[in-house]
């Protein structure tokens, strides 16, 4: 500002300060003819007010006390300056670099000139008073001298001065302390992490040589002019302090000397110092590099308080710590990281938070067990693989998976629709016969939910553009994982995740390949039996979905055995494996084994989770369906009701488990011809599903179809028509062309009109049902057999025996293929076909068909 302008501003502000607010505004407007001046005046007035509120430059906090105190340190330099020019060993001291509690550090050169490079000599204050101490000092010094790593300041020499003071000769490092270097050069987070990894590598190298640093802190880490990391003073803390735990804390005056901000909890408790101690301090360093803040709030705290914090208070996640800073500070910190506050916070959230927090755990056994492990986790993060530090949740794993394949990925709006249709398709397949799969479907919905989140949070700007399907998405991952050079366990884990996702999306074959590969990897590696057991369980469910029941039973049997091997028989996971196994055995028809396994599962669920747990309800559910398949209807009803009542007592409101139970209950009532109860149960299931999913949902449509079918069966044709019309309407909106349920609905419609004796209408509806079945991917859809049979009957009512003959024949071919010749319904159709052939004068055909008849 020019002096002239300042004088004008000053004069106006002066007067303005004497006026009250209202008058002030008017005054300023009158005085300031140009806008620039007015702005200056208002700006200054505002600043005056703000500076007063903040007490800027006032109070003891504002005064640079620390700086004033630090003066005393520099004063000591004078005392040491007498050393300059003196010889220590083969070196001549040229300059004082600094000094501290341990002694003073000088710059020196070789006195004989044989070694041109400059060195740093540290002369220790403490005398080596006993021969054993001196011997120890020499021994340690030799160990340190053997520590050779590009990122560790090399120890060159050492000995005792003429006065008997020990000294160490080290590589002279001309550099900048780590944190200043990073800020000064505005290093991004990824650049900082690169430097951090170099530090870790140096520390890890030392650890492999059985040397612990013990005093890692930013002031011991430098970055040279060539941007290389140099870690100083390796192992010196121990070398200087013979009794390792005690003396390190104390200066001669008794004050704690250790830089408390960089002390691990065990160092304060005089516990053994291990490599985990260094790993902890690296965590602090990482934290500061990332968030620009020390993990603990130690400002203005007394020693006792600081110790308490280090021992007992868990730090906040770096992203959280950063979030809580004033915006000015956030701006500074993020601009030093060459980014914006919001971006920085986002970057820290997740893996980096988790890694820093794991490194900073108070308990040694909860931390990274080694610096190597920390390095590995950082590497995993870089390649977007799941990090150890984060819990092994599916959501996390899959989110990692999607991130990994985010390159070049744009997501179309259609993406979600496709995804959801996959899941719906999957649900349909399983709920045809296996209602226990309701719970799996729930998981499928959870997947949809988080995929939606994921896509919205990651690609807001890419909301439209190229369409990429989940299939392509996964296929890319599928190929990538084959070539992945990784820890086989990680690879197996990814395969499991991909497999799981494929399964959830109904891509069961691919799921199977993936999980089989994962199993193969696990079998060839030393893996905990539990890991294997879990993967076998997944493999079992995949095989079941594929209809490979024998294979499924084999996998699930393995899962069960591995849990037993691991002594994990008192776990819910074991009970689940038993339950899944029992269910598959039921499908195979091995009811004895199925009963044995489900009884075991029930016992565990009862013992572990109590008589009212949902786990137990699930086991009862499976048991009920085993009993139903054995045609033990009364007992099946008992357990079906037990399962339902647990859920009704435990869970308020609509729940998929309740509707699944009600649905099966209805089937049971139908079997014992209690049609009224069957209808009541179906209706309840229908209501619950409507509440859960809304009217236009597959399950609701499916329920409506079942109700319509039952009404048709008992001859309440108007009610049947109402429900079936409803199913037809919603089905047209939500079902894909050729969907099996659509075939069932139209077929049901045809039967209603058949019963109403409207054969013409029924005929065209049958034709429609077959037309839909022809659109099906699987044009040998098992339903076709049923449609043709009733179409044939309708044709007979229309006096069209030749058409009926053709339909019976088609039905027989379809049933033969899908259910085999031994099936009783197939045989039934065959008999009708032979009879009609004979009646219509096709005895030749009838004879040749007879060969298929089952011999009594």
């Amino acid at each position, binding site marked *: 500002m020019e*002096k002239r302008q300042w*004088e004008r501003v*000053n004069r106006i*502000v*002066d007067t303005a*300060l004497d006026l009250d607010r209202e008058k002030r505004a008017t005054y300023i407007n009158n005085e300031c003819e140009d806008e620039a001046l007015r702005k200056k005046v208002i*700006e*200054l007035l505002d*600043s*005056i*007010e*703000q*500076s*007063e509120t*903040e007490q*800027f*430059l006032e109070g*003891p906090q504002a*005064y*640079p006390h*620390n*700086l*004033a*105190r*630090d*003066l*005393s*340190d*520099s*004063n*000591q330099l004078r005392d040491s300056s007498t050393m300059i020019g003196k010889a220590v060993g083969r070196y001549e001291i040229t300059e004082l*670099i*600094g*000094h*501290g*509690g*341990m*002694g*003073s*550090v000088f710059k020196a050169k070789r006195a004989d000139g044989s070694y041109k490079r400059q060195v740093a000599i*540290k002369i220790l204050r403490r005398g080596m008073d006993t021969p054993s101490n001196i011997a120890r000092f020499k021994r340690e010094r030799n160990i340190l001298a053997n520590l050779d790593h590009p990122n560790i300041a090399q120890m060159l020499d050492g000995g005792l001065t003429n006065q008997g003071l020990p000294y160490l000769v080290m590589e002279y490092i*001309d*550099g*900048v302390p780590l944190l*200043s270097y990073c800020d000064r050069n505005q290093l991004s987070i990824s650049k900082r992490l690169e430097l951090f990894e170099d530090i870790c590598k140096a520390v890890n190298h030392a650890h492999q040589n059985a040397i612990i640093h013990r*005093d890692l802190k*930013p*002031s011991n880490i*430098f970055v040279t002019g060539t941007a290389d990391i140099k870690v*100083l*003073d390796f192992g010196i803390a121990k070398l200087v302090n013979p009794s390792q735990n005690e003396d390190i804390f104390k*200066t001669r005056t008794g*004050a704690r*000397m250790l*830089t*408390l*901000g960089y002390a691990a909890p065990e160092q304060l408790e005089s516990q053994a110092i291990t490599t985990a101690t260094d790993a902890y301090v690296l965590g602090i360093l990482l934290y500061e590099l990332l968030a620009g803040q*020390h993990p603990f709030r*130690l400002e203005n705290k007394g020693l006792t308080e600081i110790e308490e914090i280090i021992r007992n208070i868990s730090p906040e996640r770096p992203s959280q710590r950063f979030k809580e800073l004033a915006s*000015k500070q956030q701006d500074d910190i993020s601009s030093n990281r060459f980014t914006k506050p919001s971006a920085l916070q986002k970057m820290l959230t997740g893996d980096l938070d988790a890694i820093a927090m794991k490194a900073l755990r108070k308990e040694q056994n909860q931390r990274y067990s080694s610096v190597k492990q920390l390095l590995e986790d950082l590497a995993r993060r870089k390649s977007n693989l799941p990090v150890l530090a984060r819990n092994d949740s599916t959501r996390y794993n899959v989110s990692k998976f999607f991130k990994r394949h985010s390159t070049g990925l744009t997501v179309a709006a259609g993406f979600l629709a496709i995804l959801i249709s996959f899941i719906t398709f999957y649900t349909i397949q399983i709920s045809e016969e296996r209602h226990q799969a309701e719970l799996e479907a729930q998981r499928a919905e959870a997947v949809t939910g988080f995929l939606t989140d994921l896509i919205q949070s990651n690609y807001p700007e890419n909301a439209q553009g190229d369409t990429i399907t989940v299939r392509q998405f996964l296929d890319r991952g599928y190929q990538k994982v084959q070539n992945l050079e990784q820890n086989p366990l990680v690879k197996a884990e990814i395969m499991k995740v991909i497999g799981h996702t494929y399964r959830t999306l109904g891509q069961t074959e691919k799921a199977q390949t993936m999980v089989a590969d994962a199993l193969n990897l696990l079998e060839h590696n030393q893996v905990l039996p539990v890991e294997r057991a879990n993967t076998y369980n997944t493999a079992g469910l995949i095989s079941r979905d594929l209809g490979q029941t024998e294979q499924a039973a084999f996998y699930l049997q393995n899962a069960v055995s591995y849990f037993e091997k691991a002594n994990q028989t008192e776990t819910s996971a074991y009970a689940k494996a038993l339950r899944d196994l029992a269910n598959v055995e039921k499908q195979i028809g091995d009811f004895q084994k199925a009963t044995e396994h489900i009884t075991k599962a029930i016992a565990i669920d009862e013992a572990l989770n109590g008589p009212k747990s949902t786990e137990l309800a699930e086991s009862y559910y499976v048991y009920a369906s085993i009993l139903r398949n054995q045609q033990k209807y009364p007992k099946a009803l008992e357990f079906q009701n037990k399962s339902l009542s647990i859920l009704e007592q435990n869970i308020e409101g609509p729940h998929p488990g309740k509707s699944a139970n009600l649905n099966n209950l209805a089937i049971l009532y139908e079997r014992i011809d209690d049609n009224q109860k069957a209808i009541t149960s179906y209706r309840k299931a229908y209501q619950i599903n409507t509440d859960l999913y809304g009217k236009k949902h597959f399950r609701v449509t499916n329920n409506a179809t079942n109700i319509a079918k039952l009404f048709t069966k008992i001859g309440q044709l108007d009610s049947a028509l109402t429900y079936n019309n409803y199913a037809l309407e919603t089905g047209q909106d939500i079902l894909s062309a050729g969907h099996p349920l659509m075939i069932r609905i139209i077929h049901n419609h045809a039967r209603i009109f058949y019963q109403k004796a409207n054969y013409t209408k029924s005929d065209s509806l049958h034709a429609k049902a077959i037309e839909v079945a022809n659109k099906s991917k699987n044009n040998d859809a098992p339903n076709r057999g049923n449609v043709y049979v009733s179409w044939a009957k309708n044709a007979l009512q229309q006096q069209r025996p030749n058409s009926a003959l053709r339909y019976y024949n088609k039905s027989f071919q379809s049933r033969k293929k899908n259910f085999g010749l031994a099936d009783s319904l197939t045989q039934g159709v065959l008999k009708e076909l032979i009879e009609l052939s004979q009646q219509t004068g096709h005895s030749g055909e009838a004879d040749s068909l007879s060969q298929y008849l089952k011999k009594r």
Partner: protein
Amino acid sequence: MRNKSEITHLLKKARCDSGQAMEKLFPLIYDELKKIAHSKLKKERNDITFTETALVHEVYMKMIDQTKIEVQDKNHFMAISARCMRQILIDHARKKKAEKRGGDQQDVTYIDELLKIRHEAEELLGLDEKLKELANFDERMAEVVTLRFFGQMTVTATADALNVSEKTVKRDWAKARGWLYKEIKK
């Protein structure tokens, strides 16, 4: 060190002619202040009640013959001390900032204290720069800040030392502080 009466004389003279006597007085007080600061601070590093004002008073007691002095002289002395303190701290801050090779001199101090020092050094150098700028167009305002901030002097003492009214000091302080705030914080 010159004897007390000599310094007291210089101080009295400096009040009238701000030139020569001042030039002689400044380095004397500067040295003494620094010396006492060192020994004092070294002894009392852990004493949180320590203040810079106490330091200046000690220097004052040591250098000036109390029997031959008026209140104004004392305030004048304090004002010079404040300027000295500013200089001392700025010199030190500059050194701290320029420090490259951390070496080992820091391992006795708490690291967070070190970080604070670095931070304070940078802040202080920034403040000093702005204060110089302010002095270019309003020397008195800059003086008020030096005395109030570096000398931790009261409004009354500042008014006395600068020979202006307390109201002026208050007003100058408010405006100067506002301006510095605007320049530094915004």
